[in-house]
């Protein structure tokens, strides 16, 4: 049983992070806290992808030019998830940038970031 847990502890942690982020996005009333929950959610998916790419005994995917013909894929970590996650990180940054801008606009218009207060203001 312990081997079952230890052999996949990266994946257990990523699931916990997703639950925290997901709860933060759904339940929080303050819009800024929703945004923080969204960031946790995005970064847990990045952790998931990166832990797919790891190999036991694999080193940094910078290939050693000296042993050019005899490069074995086993010695190096899988580079593809790292490339995909560079894109996901950039998307996360862009999301946070636009979300903060919208929050400033909302605060400029309603003077609050609490969702229920904004909904009251909308009803009037």
């Amino acid at each position, binding site marked *: 049983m312990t081997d079952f847990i230890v052999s996949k502890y990266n994946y257990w942690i990523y699931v916990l992070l997703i639950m925290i982020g997901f709860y933060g996005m759904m339940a929080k009333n303050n819009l800024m806290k929703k945004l923080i929950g*969204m960031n946790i959610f995005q970064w847990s*998916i990045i952790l998931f992808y990166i832990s797919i790419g790891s190999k036991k005994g694999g080193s940094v995917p910078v290939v050693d030019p000296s042993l050019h013909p005899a490069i074995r894929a086993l010695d190096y970590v899988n580079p593809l998830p790292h490339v995909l996650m560079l894109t996901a990180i950039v998307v996360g940054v862009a999301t946070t940038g636009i979300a903060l801008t919208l929050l400033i606009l*909302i605060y400029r218009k309603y003077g609050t970031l609490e969702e229920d207060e904004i909904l009251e203001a909308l009803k009037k």
Partner: protein
Amino acid sequence: MMLHFPALLVVVPLIMSFLIFACGLFERRICFPLTLVTLAACLLFAGGSFWTVLSTGQPVHYHLGAWAPPWGIEYVVDNLNGLVLVALAIVALLAAIYAKTMVEREIPVAKHAPFYALYVLQATGLFGMTVTGDMFNLYVLLEIASFSAYALIGMGEGAAPFAAFRYMIFGTLGACAYLLGVGYLYIITGSLNMADLQQILTPLYQSQVLSVGFAFLLVGTGVKMAYFPVHTWLPDSYTLAPSSVSVLLAPLFTKVGAYVLIRILFTVFDPSFSTTLLPATQVLGWIAVAGILFSSIMALAQSDLKRMLCYLIVTEIGYIGIGVASGNRLGLIGSIFHILNDMFMMAGLFMAAGVIQAHFRTRKTHELTGLHRKMPVTSAVLVIAGLSVIGVPPACGFFSKWYLLLGTIQAGQWFFMGALLLGSLLNAILFFRIFERSYFEARPDDAPHLGKEPGTTFERAAMSELVPMVLTAAFIILLGLFSGYIVEYSIAYAVPKGM
């Protein structure tokens, strides 16, 4: 030169958006002509690549960076996305022509450069999502289309930033669900290319990881498609968006989401997987039934014309869901054809709503009395598009609903058929209420004929607004008349063999 068209279709608007932004900083007036030129070029590229598919009968494969598929990224244009691409290009061009006077009216002058750049980036995202053959590339294009949508909606009046923020929360949730689904497929196959995935996945259909990944892909696409339970972001954001933006987003974004759903259900996964192994299409169908009833009734309850049309979009997506859920050849033909028709129908309706709001200063349906005397062309377009949504023969809506009905009958799903008919009935009530007001109720003379500010003259709708509307109405009729050819020569080949 023709063989580069699939890549040019996405890359030309991308590079033009940078040019539009850079030149717009110096000379604001150059933005609109550049946007028109770009979208016209996109129409040429989309038509050209679809023509090569039709003439050769083979899907067009385009290797980006000259790398073979599982390693590099590949573009695939076949009968399914060729049609969607051409319809996207036409509606995007018409929406751009329509947006000229709307942008002058709604968007401050200093913001024209970024606005038009985001407008073209939105089109780039939609084209890229439709034409790509790589799952992760589709995610990146999805994000480009979504970011430009959030920003464009945030430009609206009143509570638009708040609506845009809620749309962003939902949209990011959907995009992350899609990314998680791609991750689950990647962890058990190791590949990202759609064609490659289909080969590797067939022996793996029993694995639990695959079914959870499939569920995440469906949830992610469902959010982008505004499928029933996760559609709540749509009414607020498209109603409060500037009318030039809602004319571009409303008809196109959800339909590309529907196309992605069909691509996942029938190209990445074997049709038998989603119909027999997992009751996915059954679940989709029953949710669609609930969605159609709920959103039709909600549309009836709306007094705001634009918000009513937003609920109509959710109903149309429900019809597409039922076509997919019936899981047979006729149903799928119906849903693909409905994606095409709905782009033009919704474009016509939202254009009419935008002109009414701009010139009649009101969106309340009960204030639209005597519309046809003041704005004959707009009310004519509203009638044609409305009849098409209801499903009256000359217009295209009838033919796609006809195939959807045949699909449900063949599949023996009587509740699905019931939902289709009831939905059409509720749409009929919806539209005849408006037609009756605009045509048969005379406008009392004492009522300020301009709504809020009495005394201002009633300037006629500009030509740049009327021409695209008339063209859209013409396309609705043409699609209806030539529906036989469209289905026979193109959509029939889009349906996978297994169905």
